[in-house]
Each structure stands twice: as C-alpha cells, then as structure tokens.
C-alpha cells in the first residue's frame, strides 16, 4: 500500500458525531485553505490572516450546506504545522457528512485514524513521547479497526463492495489488455461507448451500497418516520415539543423531499423525516380521519413508527388495533402524559415514558432512536466511528473518481486517460477491503486473457 497518508490534504471530523450541538470539521494540508475557500461564501479566506475566524456559508453546487464559522491557521503555527482550517457547523450527521463529501469532491482525502496527530509529530509539532503513545494506541487498534471495519459494513454490503471491485477490475483488465497486447484479437476493443455504460452501472451500484449501509442511510437520508396514535394521546403536543427543543432544527433541503414527506426534524443529530404530518397537524385522529388505507400506506413507506399511547389510561380498542397494525414495523412505543400517571397495561413492550407537557423523557426517545438506527458500536467511540466513516469516505472517493472517468469518456478523451480515474476508483475500493495493487491486476489480466509469445 502506498503510504500516501503523510502529505496530502486530509479532512476529518474533530468532534464526536451525532450528539453535540456543534461539529468541528478539520482540514489539514497545503491546499486546506484554498479548498475550503472554494465552498465558502463570505470573506475571501485566501486573504485572511492566520488565527482569524470568518463567518459565512458553505455552498456546494449552489445549495447552502450550512451557516458556519471558519478558523484559519496558517503553517507552521497550527496543530499539524500545515495549513489547517477548522469549520464549525451545526450539529448532526447530515451537515458534517455533506461538508466532508463536498471537500472530498474537491480533492481532500478522508483522514486515517490518528492522522492529524501523526502529522503533528512528523512536522515537529509534538515530541516523540507524545507521538509514540499515540502511535501505540493507533497500532493497538489496528486489529480492532479491521474487525470493526467488517462489522461496520454488514455482510451483504461487504459482498456488494467485493462485487463492485471485481466489476471494476474486469473493466480495467479489459482496457489494459488492449494496451499491453494491442494485437491480441480475442479481446473486445474497449471504446468510450463501451466504457460509459459499464462505468454508469458501477456508479449506480455504489449509490445502492451507500443507501444500504444502515448508518450511511441514517446520515444521508434521515429516517422516514410516522407518528400514530388514537385521538387525544398527545401526538401534536409531542411533535411541538420536539420541534421546540433547542437542538431541533427544521431544515428544508431541496431535492430531497418526496411527496409524502412534509417535515423534517433533527432529533439529537439524526434527521427524522415525518411522513404525512398533515394528518397529525390538523387532527389527532389519523386512523379515522384519513382511513385505515391511508395509514397503512404511510406505515408501509416508513422506517420508523412512533406509536403514541396515553400513560394515564388503560389501552383502548383503537390502541390495540394500532399496536397490532404496527407490530411488524420498527417502532417506538411512546407513553405520553407520564406526568398524569402510569395506568397503561401493555405486556412485553418497552415503553419510552415522556411528558410532552413537562418536556421530560425526550432524551430517552433520542437514545432509543439511536439504539435502533445507529450501530451501537459506533456511538460514543470516536476512533471506531472514524473507521466506519472512512469507509464511507472511500466509497465516495471511488464514486467521485468514477464520475471523473465518466465525464472524460463523455468528452471522448482517449481510453488511457479515462482508465486513470477508473484505476483510482479501484484503488479507493481496495483501501476498504485491503485488496489492491498492480499484482492483482496483472494476475487478472493473465487469467482472463490468453496472452503470450
């Protein structure tokens, strides 16, 4: 593996993900200021002196990602002794992830675990004892990281990445055989017309994988959530309480809203997309008002059901019907009005007790959402979280390389040029599975094609 960890521009999240009100994204390397500046609308960061903070917005492809504060540290007076930019964004997975994605698109690389510290040492910012203790820690974790890497990507996704790698390798080998054995007549002559659809197929597959990765899905898409409950259990007041929470920010992100989604809610850094909130806002009785079919449709679209019950009353037939209706869904049973007592009689179910009125128990609800949707191993452990985020980052790098290859092919650059980006994509995938290198390519070449003198 080429040790490219040392000198290029890297990006990583410096704060614990998902829980804090703010996130800090750190960028280090000679191009750090220049790259962030390309996303930043505000003062010209290239012109700002070291150790200053600038207010502005990060904009990617014309869409505002977030309102941010950007701190500039010029080399050598920074943590890593390189140019460093620290971006303070609002909390939550989505924003941090979008910022990192935009920076990777511009050429940053996802930082390896402990890489900022390594750079600090290598550039003489911290002494050997400090660095060695960090290295011991990082080394000791290498094995666990590998294990977690495999856990972080579930079996199905891992298989998909392997498939992807072999699709890409076979595409590359087909191009290489043309180049190294131009007179070999049993291989298809690879032209951009052939490369374009094959590349598109691989890009589609990567997008599929990004969606299938559970954590990735939570980060990128939010959780499609439906709130149900019979009349007068307090759904509206629960929603309003959630919306009034300090941490809760309602965001509108253009292009992501689907017809059924009517609101977005940030619950402790995780985006909940509320389905069919119209029913919830105008009436308490979703079942009776819009009919059981509509409710079923909403339910079938959802990733999560918040079933609200009244803690102060025994279960009614309508409650029981809803419990039955949602029994095969990922759901959280919310016992509202916990301030009024605890009469609800339900067996074998974990009830999250909240009081929308007194604003208690909301943290319990947040934790339950995280428990259900974010790999527990990944929460509360920054190193392992990075490990997984690194894989997502690598996959995105690969995707970006493929898109570059595609656009070169579309303007009809020679296949040799197009192949440069295909090979980069393959190497990015290899950094996830640990399988890459010229030898594999050459073995593939000679096992797939019958070449020789």
């Amino acid at each position: 593996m080429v040790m490219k960890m040392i000198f290029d521009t890297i990006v990583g999240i410096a704060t614990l993900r998902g829980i804090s009100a703010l996130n800090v994204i750190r960028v280090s390397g000679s191009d750090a200021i220049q790259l962030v500046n390309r996303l930043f609308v505000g003062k010209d960061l290239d012109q700002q002196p070291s150790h200053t903070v600038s207010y502005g917005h990060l904009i990617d492809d014309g869409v505002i990602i977030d309102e941010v504060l950007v701190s500039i540290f010029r080399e050598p007076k920074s943590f890593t002794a390189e140019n460093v930019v620290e971006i303070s964004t609002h909390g939550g997975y989505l924003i941090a992830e979008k910022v990192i994605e935009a920076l990777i698109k511009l050429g940053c690389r996802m930082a390896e675990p402990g890489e900022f510290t390594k750079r600090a040492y290598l550039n003489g910012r911290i002494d050997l004892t400090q660095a060695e203790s960090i290295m011991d820690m990082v080394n000791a974790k290498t094995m666990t990281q590998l294990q977690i890497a495999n856990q972080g990507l579930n079996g199905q996704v891992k298989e998909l990445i392997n498939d992807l790698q072999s699709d890409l390798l076979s595409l590359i080998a087909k191009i290489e055989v043309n180049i190294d054995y131009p007179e070999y007549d049993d291989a298809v002559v690879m032209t951009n017309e052939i490369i374009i659809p094959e590349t598109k197929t691989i890009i589609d597959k990567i997008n599929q994988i990004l969606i299938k990765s559970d954590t990735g899905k939570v980060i990128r898409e939010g959780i499609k959530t439906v709130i149900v409950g019979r009349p007068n259990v307090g759904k509206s007041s629960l929603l309003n309480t959630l919306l009034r929470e300090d941490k809760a920010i309602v965001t509108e992100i253009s292009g992501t809203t689907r017809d059924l989604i009517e609101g977005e809610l940030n619950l402790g850094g995780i985006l909940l997309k509320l389905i069919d909130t119209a029913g919830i806002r105008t009436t308490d009785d979703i079942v009776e008002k819009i009919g059981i079919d509509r409710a079923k449709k909403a339910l079938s679209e959802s990733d999560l059901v918040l079933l609200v019950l009244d803690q102060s009353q025994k279960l009614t037939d309508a409650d029981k019907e809803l419990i039955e209706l949602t029994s095969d869904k990922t759901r959280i049973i919310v016992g509202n009005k916990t301030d009024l007592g605890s009469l609800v009689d339900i067996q074998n179910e974990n009830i999250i007790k909240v009081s929308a009125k007194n604003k208690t128990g909301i943290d319990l609800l947040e934790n339950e959402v995280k428990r259900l949707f974010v790999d527990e191993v990944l929460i509360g452990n920054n190193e392992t979280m990075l490990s997984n985020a690194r894989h997502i980052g690598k996959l995105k790098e690969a995707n970006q390389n493929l898109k570059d290859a595609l656009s070169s092919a579309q303007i009809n650059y020679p296949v040799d040029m197009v192949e440069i980006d295909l090979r980069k994509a393959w190497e990015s995938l290899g950094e996830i599975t640990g399988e890459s290198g010229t030898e594999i390519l050459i073995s593939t070449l000679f096992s797939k094609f019958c070449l020789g003198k």
Partner: protein
Amino acid sequence: MYDAIIIGGGHAGSEASLAVARLGHETLLITGNINMIATMPCNPSIGGPAKGTLVREIDALGGEMGKVADKTSLQMKMLNHSKGPAVRALRAQSDKVLYPKEMQKSLFAQENLTVKEAYVKRLLVENNTVKGVILESGEIIEANTVILTAGTYMEACVLVGSTSTPEGPDKQKPSYGLSEHLRELGIETFRLKTGTPPRIKRDSIDFSKMELSPGDNFKYHFSYDDSVFVPLEKEWPCYLIHTSEFTHSIIKSNLRKSAMYSGLVKGLGPRYCPSIEDKLVRFADKERHQLFIEPESQFIDEVYLQGFSTSMPHDIQEEMVHSLPGLENAVIAKYAYAIEYDAIHPTDLWPTLESKIINNLYFAGQVNGTSGYEEAACQGLMAGINAALKMQGKEPFILRRDEAYIGVLIDDLVTKGVLDPYRMLTSRAEFRLLLRHDNADIRLTEKGHRIGLISDERYQKFLDKLSLIKAETARLKTVTVNPTAVINQQLKAANSGELKEKISLLDLLKRPELSYDFVISLIDEKRTLPLEITEQIEIEVTYEGYIKKAIKEAEKLIKEERIQIPADFDYSKLHNIALEARVKLSKIKPLTVGQASRISGVNPADITSLILHLKEHSSNTSK
C-alpha cells in the same frame, strides 16, 4: 587487472560493457562465443508496449539498443496510436542476423573495451568483496568490479518432449559451476523456465492462406540521435493465422509428451509467455489462438512462429505445425524448445543492482529473473553506470518510479522480487502518463549528459529542441482567433464546439478533438516544425489536466523517496512493528521510506513507526 569485468555478452552484457568503457574504465567482456554476442534467441523484435519506452529510455541515457534496432529494422509499427499518448508504443521487427553484427561492431570499436572468449567458473572474492574472476581454464583475471549478465546460461537445460539436454539457447554451451559457486558465497539461486516457438523455412509456406499484417509507413525510429528508417515498400511484413480445432486435438492427445506436462520442467515459466499447450490447458474453452509469422532476417530463409512456443517432441511439433493454415507443407528449420536455468533473487540486490552480499558484484538481465531483451538491456546499462559511478566515488544513479520505466522495473525487482520471469507492462507503471515514449529524452537526456554518456553535441541538440517547444507554446498562447463564421464553420467540420469569444490557439488546442495542425490551419499556417516538437506540444497541452494531476501524485512519492534509510538500519530496534514487516524490511533493506512502503506485508502503521525512529535517529546524530 581491469577496472571491470562483464560476464556474458547478451543484451545486458553489451550495454553494461559499453557504459563502463565509455565512462573511461578499462573493461573486459568475457563471453562464451564472440559470434553469439547480442543474438536474439527468441522473437526477432524490439519494443512494443512499455518495452518500446524502455528502448527510448536506454537511448536517452546513452545506451546502444535503440540505435542498433533502428539500423537493423525490417519493419516499424506504432502500436496503440488511438488509445492515448501514454501508451503509444514503437515496435521494430529486427533482422536477427544484422542486429548482433551491429552491436558487435559497436563493442569492438569501443575504446577501453576488450572482448575475450571464455567461460567463468568462479569469482575471486576477499572479505565479501569481489576481486576478479577465475576462468574454466584456471586463469585468474583481477578486476575492481564484476557485472554478471549470464542470461539463461547458468546450468541451462533444454527440454523437448521427454528429453533434457544440458545446453544453452541455440545449442550453445551452458555455464556450469558458477551458480553453485554463487550459492557457496551465500547468494541463493532458483530455477526459471522459458521457451521459444519453432522456426519455419520461408519457401515452404503458402502465404496466400494468411492475413497480411504490414508495418506503418512512417519515419519512426527509436533513437533520438540517429534517423535511420526503412521505407514501407522495403519493409518485411508479418502474417496472421489462427490455430484450428485439429491443432488443438493433436496437442490435447499428446499433452503428456510435452516436457511441461511430463513433470520434467521444474522451473516456473512466465505467465506472460505461456507455451501453446499451456494456453490450451488454461483456456480450454477458447476455440482458436492467434499466431504471427514474423520475418527473422533478410539473410536467412526462416520465419518465427509467434504464439506457438512448445516443449513437445519433434514428431508432434511436425504434426502441430502442419495442422496450421498455410503451413500444411512447412519445413521446420528449428524446433521449439523450453529452457530451464538458474536465476538469482533480485531482492538480494541494492537498487544500483549491486549485490547486498558481495561488494562490487553487480547482476543484470535475465539472471535477475526478467524476460525480454529490452528489460535485460536497461539493467545492463544501469549496472554499468552504477559500477562506474562507484569506482569514481560518485553518488549512485537510481531512477524513481515517476522518472522512467527503468525505475519501475528495477524498483519492482529489488523491492518485490520475482516468482516467474518479469516482463515490463504498462500496467506496472502508476505514472505511465508521465513515462511516455515521446518524452523519454525530455525526462532523461540531461541525466545521461551529467553521467557522461550523452555527448555535449547531442545535449545541445536536445536543448535546442526544448527551446523550440517552449517558443512555439508561448507563440500559440499569444495568437488568437475570433469567433467568425468562417472559423466556426471549420470548427463545426472538425466536430468541435463553436466559439463565442476570442480564444488563443493554445486554449483551442486543449480540446481533445483538435490537433496542432488543425489549430494552426485556422490562421492559414502549415506546419514547419518537426513532428516531434508539435506532437510534444499537442500532448502536453491537450492532456494538461491529467498530466498535472499525475505530477501532483508523483510529488507525494518524491517526498517519501527523499526520506532515506541507512543501509545498515537495525530493524530489531523498532518495537512497534509486525513480525512480517520486520522480517521483510530486514531482508529487503529499503533505502528510502518510499521503497519500504512498497514492500508487501509492510503496512502504513509500520511505516509510521519507521519514520518516527528515523527522525529520532537523525535528531540524535545531529546533536
């Protein structure tokens, strides 16, 4: 007493001898048969993808191969023309009678160089340093440096069917005892195998059943110095045929008679040049295999049957050949054979190709586990240069992977080692966009001049070329065209977008669909500059974005290559690395962090630990 002795007069030995002698050292080339110096015992061609670039690199550094290939070519072809500038490749069919003659001429005319016909039995070694050689006759010849380029001759064995004959290529006497002696010195050897197809009498062939495969009608040549070419009408064509179902059934029913499949062959053959029986076994569902009939020489009535390498017994070879279209009545001039020989592990060498075990002893060519004339020649040149530099007390000459295919080849050999004969492929070069055959002179002429193998005159010619490129590029930047109807009409005809505003010719040239000739035609100009100048401008401008990206990637490599590791670094001092990494690093003894990071089994965490200790080491010593 000589400054240097070169053992073996093949393509590596020839280049090594010339380089050392040209750099002013008394040199002795010892070879088993003077008439066989620089012969082509396998395919009669030089160049091709990656290999053609090697030839140009050899030439830019002052080597001989390119010039000899130009003088002796029967046909030249530019391969991969449409696939992109980085992979275009020149290939010559060489006259196998003329090529060795031309090379011998250069060797015999070379000042400071003596050629002697003999076999070396042992090396003279004192205190792990080579002091000369001992011949089979018992004669001792002393020298400061020895370069061993024994090719496939050490303990060579030719295998045909069930017979194993101790002989070298073309029935030459092998070198006995030398490899055993090397093992006594602590240099391990291992068996490798290669093979060659049959040669056919030309007048026994019915060419009407074959597809003609001519060369290109272009004034191509390898050397940047000479300009010798053969016009197309004088070129000798190749022909293409395919194996038939009948051929396959003959081979399949006689598979056990092949030396390869009877258990006779112990050496590992090249994946890159499998025998025809190998191809049939490994690709059982392939209905046919392509074969090329290549001219061997204008002086002998024989052709080369490319793709038909085999170790079948002679009677089966007859049957096999006669099953091919146009070869029904063919007369086999020379039967195909497989050959086994002893090679050394190139991981026992420093990147200068000097042995890590015996000082002043260098190895180059096929004995290092490579395959191909070009691969051998470039190692010979590099070993020769480094031997001379060491004698002169100068810094070694090591090419990086972003500087030359030669750098890739030697780095792969000494860092990763080989299991089967190593062939150069473009896929091996991660910076192949920078390592083009068209810019080999730009990459390497200055280095060749500094070393002393490129004359002042040739260097001046090179500098003139550079300034022409620079001046013309600058001119294209200032000359503009306006979005007139005429101009836009011309652009449209060339499938290029219309102009909306004034644009410089340089910016127009950035469009991949437009050529230099087209762009200057917009201002009613015709090319006056040589093609090699305008081609260079065209490539550098059109692919500027990609080239810049590659240069940026290469900068990372350069930084890693700058962090040096002492040759005697003690890896047992590194407490923080995996066992596998420790073992491999101790064996390979990488000279830079870049090289260390390319060793398989050494991961980034090991490298970081290594860097930490190197930093500690250097700060301690500087105190």
